[in-house]
């Protein structure tokens, strides 16, 4: 079964594109801004750092809820499109997101009040990054 390099590269490209579509199907136009806003709000709320420990815990918990909501939104869109579960490299990306979320939770729990605006700014930057990154997927439709 002979195959030349051009055919091999073409098949590799086909496989990569199909994998991408299976792992990250195109999104409806409303999903990127919605996720961006949720992520921005999650980080800002997480870094609110009020003096009261209970309010601080509530802020961090609220941040977690908003972050999870963003993930569930993406998962819901994918399920609605008829694709269930994630396999392969895309699954590892999720593990990276969980690590990042854990980092923000720890930072949120120990943040000083003066860091509030830095965290809000970080939230806006992260939210915009999510919006732009997911927007590329929406543009593939």
């Amino acid at each position, binding site marked *: *079964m002979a195959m030349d390099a051009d055919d091999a590269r073409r098949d590799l490209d086909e*496989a990569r594109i199909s994998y991408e579509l*299976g792992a990250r199907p195109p999104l409806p136009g409303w999903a990127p801004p919605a996720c961006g806003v949720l992520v921005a709000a999650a980080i800002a709320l997480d870094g609110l750092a009020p003096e009261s420990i209970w309010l601080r815990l509530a802020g961090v918990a609220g941040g977690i809820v908003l972050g999870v909501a963003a993930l569930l939104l993406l998962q819901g869109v994918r399920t609605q499109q*008829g694709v*269930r579960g*994630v396999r392969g490299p895309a699954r590892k990306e999720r593990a990276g997101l969980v690590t990042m979320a854990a980092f923000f939770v720890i930072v949120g729990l120990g943040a000083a009040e003066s860091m509030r605006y830095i965290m809000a700014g970080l939230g806006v930057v992260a939210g915009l990054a999510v919006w732009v990154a997911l927007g590329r997927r929406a543009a593939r439709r």
Partner: protein
Amino acid sequence: MTPGAGLDEAFRTVTRLRIAAFLSACDESDFRAVQEYCGLSPSLLSKNVTFLAEQGYAEVRKGHVGKVPRTWLRLTQRGRTALAHHLTALQEIADAAAGQGRALGKDRD
């Protein structure tokens, strides 16, 4: 081992390769989603999925969502392994050609 020795005949057509690669990204997928994203007609998808199922590479599950009948497709573990070997073989062919190209370039210098 010669580059490309691990190529699998089941994935030699672009259509079957697309279907398998798409299914490799998920646990299972709706027939219509595969059809839409792989740009295939229902009959072509059905024919190729049947072939993959005969090889033990894919499974077809029929069910209902509410009252609507649905068909779900998934790649079996055997199919995932076979696809991984096939992609490795393709990469070997591409790499071998690139290596030869570099060697030729050096000879000319």
